[in-house]
C-alpha cells in the first residue's frame, strides 16, 4: 500500500494547461456557437451522452482519452453521463448505420430540451469512408438535427477539447 501511495506522489499532477486555440479555424467557430449556448442554457456545466451510431471505434478511443490525466476534461465541468435523460449534449460518432437509426432517434427523443447534438469525426460529419449505402445512412445530420461538427479521423483529444471548450476556457 505504501508503494501505491509512493507511486501516486512520485507521478504527481500531469494535467496540462489548455493551449489557447488559434482564432480562425472552423473548429473554433463551432466552439464559439457551442459556448454561447452552454453559457446561456447550461450554466457552464455540461453533461454529455456519447452515442456510437456506427463508428469504427477510433473516435471512442479519443473520447476516452479526454478522461485521462493529461486532458482531464472533468475539470471544465464536462462529464459523460449514462442516461440521455441527464444529458445536455448528444455526442454522436460514426456514419449512422441503418441498424442504429432507430436507437439513435430514441436517444435523441429521450434527451431533455434544450439539447445540443455534436457530430464527432469525419463519418458523423459527412459519412467519411463509409458514406451512404444500403447499410449506412451517412452523416448524423441525415438522421437527427445536428448543431455542431467536430471533423477528424479521428479528431485528437485536443481537437475535441477545442471543439467543446475553446470558449469556456477564455
Amino acid at each position, binding site marked *: 500500500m505504501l*508503494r*501505491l501511495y509512493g*507511486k*501516486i506522489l512520485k*507521478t504527481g499532477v*500531469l494535467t496540462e494547461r489548455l493551449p489557447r486555440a488559434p482564432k480562425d479555424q472552423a473548429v473554433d467557430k463551432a466552439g464559439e456557437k457551442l459556448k454561447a449556448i452552454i453559457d446561456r442554457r447550461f450554466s457552464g456545466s455540461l453533461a454529455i451522452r*456519447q*452515442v*456510437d*451510431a*456506427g*463508428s*469504427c*471505434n*477510433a*473516435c*471512442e*478511443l*479519443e*473520447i*476516452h*482519452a479526454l*478522461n*485521462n*490525466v*493529461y486532458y482531464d476534461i472533468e475539470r471544465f465541468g464536462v462529464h*459523460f453521463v*449514462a*442516461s440521455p435523460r441527464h444529458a445536455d449534449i448528444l455526442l454522436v460518432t*460514426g*456514419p449512422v*448505420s*441503418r*441498424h*442504429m*437509426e*432507430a*436507437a439513435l*432517434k430514441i*436517444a435523441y427523443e429521450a434527451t431533455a430540451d434544450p439539447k445540443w447534438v455534436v457530430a464527432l469525426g469525419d463519418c458523423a460529419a459527412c459519412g*467519411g*469512408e*463509409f*458514406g*451512404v*449505402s*444500403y*447499410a*449506412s*445512412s451517412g452523416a448524423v445530420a441525415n438522421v437527427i438535427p445536428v448543431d455542431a461538427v467536430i471533423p477528424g*479521423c*479521428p479528431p*485528437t483529444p485536443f481537437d475535441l477539447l477545442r471543439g467543446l471548450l475553446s470558449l469556456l476556457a477564455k
Partner: protein
Amino acid sequence: MRVNAEASTEFRSLLAARGIEARPVGPEPLPPAATLEVGSPDWGRCAQTAQEENWRWAGAFAEDEGAALAVSACLEKQGAYLVLRTRVAAEQPELPSHAPHYWAADRAERHIQDLFGIRFTDHPDPRRWVRHQAWDEKTHPLRKNFPAAGSPPETTPPDSSYPFFKAQGPSVYEIPVGPIHAGIIEPGHFRFQAIGETVLHLEERLGYVHKGIEKIAEGRDPASLARLAGRVSGDTTVGHAWAACLAMERAAALEIPPRAAYLRGLLAERERAINHLWDLGALCNDVGFAFGYYQFGRLRELWLRENLAWFGHRLLMDRIVPGGVAVDVSPDVAKRMRESTVVLRKELDELISIIDANSSLEDRFLAAGVLAPETAAALGALGFVGRASGQTFDVRKDAPYPPYERLNVRVALESQGDVSSRFWVRYKELRAALRLIEQMLADLPAGESAVPWRMPEPHAEGFAAVEGWRGEILCFVRFDADNRIARYWPRDPSAVNWPALEKLVLGNIVPDFPVCNKSVNGSYSGHDL
C-alpha cells in the same frame, strides 16, 4: 510451421479414404495457403473430417460468380492454412452446414446466409444474424446485382421481432442491455436470463454497426481499400491494413522490401502495446481500481503522442499502404523509440509489483469469467482470449510472415482461463512486444520503405493471416480485370471470440459482466462489418 501443400495432400487422402473427391487447384491461387475444391454435397462431410483430424475452423466467405456462388472455408492446423472451396448454383443455393461440426461456423454461415442468400441446410440455428431490418430476407447485399445504395426503407425500424432464447420458471428474469450501453462503448445487445444475481444464460445480438464494408470495398483501388481496411476496427487499424495489403500484394505477386516489413512490424507491435496498456487500465477501472486506470492510461497516452510525433497519427491510421509503409524511422527516432521501451519497462516493473500485491484486485479477477481450455479449443478462441485458456496459436510464431520469421517471438500463455489469466496474458504480451520492438530496431534493414504498386493479373486473388493485437486476422481479396477490388473479406478475431463471452459469463453475477466483457474486449465494428 508445416508445409501447406503437405498438409493439404494429407487431408486430401483422408477425404479420399471417406469417398470424398477433393481437387487441388493449379496453379495454387492463394499461396502460401493451399486450396482444395470439393463438390457441394460433400461440403458438410469435409468439415466433419477436418474436425476429426483436429483442424481449426477459422472462417468462411462467399463470392458471386454469376451463375454460381463460390464458398470458401479456411482451416488451420499447426500453422498450415487450407482453403476448401465449393460452388452452388446462384438460383436457390443450398449447402450442407459446417456448424454441426464447428461452433465457430455458426455465425459465420449466418452472415453468408444474410448477405448472399445461401441456405445452410442442416444449420442448427438458421436465424438471421447480421441482417436486422435494413433489407429483407429476399434481397442479398453481396450479390453483384444488388446495388451498393440498396433500397432501404425511409426510416429503418428497430429489429424488435428477433426471436431471442427464452428461459422460464420461478424467479427467472430477463435483462435486456443495449444496443446503446451506459458508457463510451460500441453498440450491441445483450439479453441476460438471470436468477437473483446469477447469470443463467446470455445471448448476444450483434450487427448494429453493420456498415456494408464488404460491399463498399467493391470497385476500390488498392490504396482506397487499404484506407477502408484501416477502419474495419479503429483500434486495429494497423492489423487490418496490414492484412489487406499483404493479401493484395500476394494477389499481385509483389514483394515488399525487408525494411518495409520491419516498419510494419514496429507499427503493429506499438499498436499491440498501446491497446494492451488501455485494456490493463480498463480492467482495473471495471473493478473500481482507479489507480491502475490512471497509471496505464498515462503510459498509453505517452505512446500515442510518440505515434503522432514520429508517424503523424496517434492511432497509426493509413501508415500501411499497398507496397510498403508511408512512414520511415530515422536513426534519431529509432534511438528515442528504444529509450521509450526502456522507460515503459521500468514503469511496468514498478506498477506490476503494486498491482500484484493488491488483494482486492485479485479478489475480483481470480476465478471470474472462466473459459475452460477445452471450451476455448472447441471454439478455436484466438489471441489473448485463447492464450489465457491454454491455446498457444499465434500467427507470428506458427505461420510467420515477414518480419516475424526472422524474429524470436515469445508466446505468452496462461491456463486458468479467468479474467486474471486474460489480464496477465496481456501484460506478458505487452512485455514481449517491447522485446520485439527492440529486436526490430536493432536489425532494421537498410533500403526502401515501399515499392510502387504493380497491377495484378485479372481476377487474381490473395489470402493473408496476420496476428493483430486481438489475435489472428484473416483477409481475402479478389481483383477485377482493372486493378479494382471485386471482393474483400476481413475476418477480425472478434468474429470468432464473441461466443466465448456467452459461455464464460455463465454462473457469474450480473455485476461482474462488465469486467468479464472487457477481459474479452471483442470489437463490434470488426465483427459487424
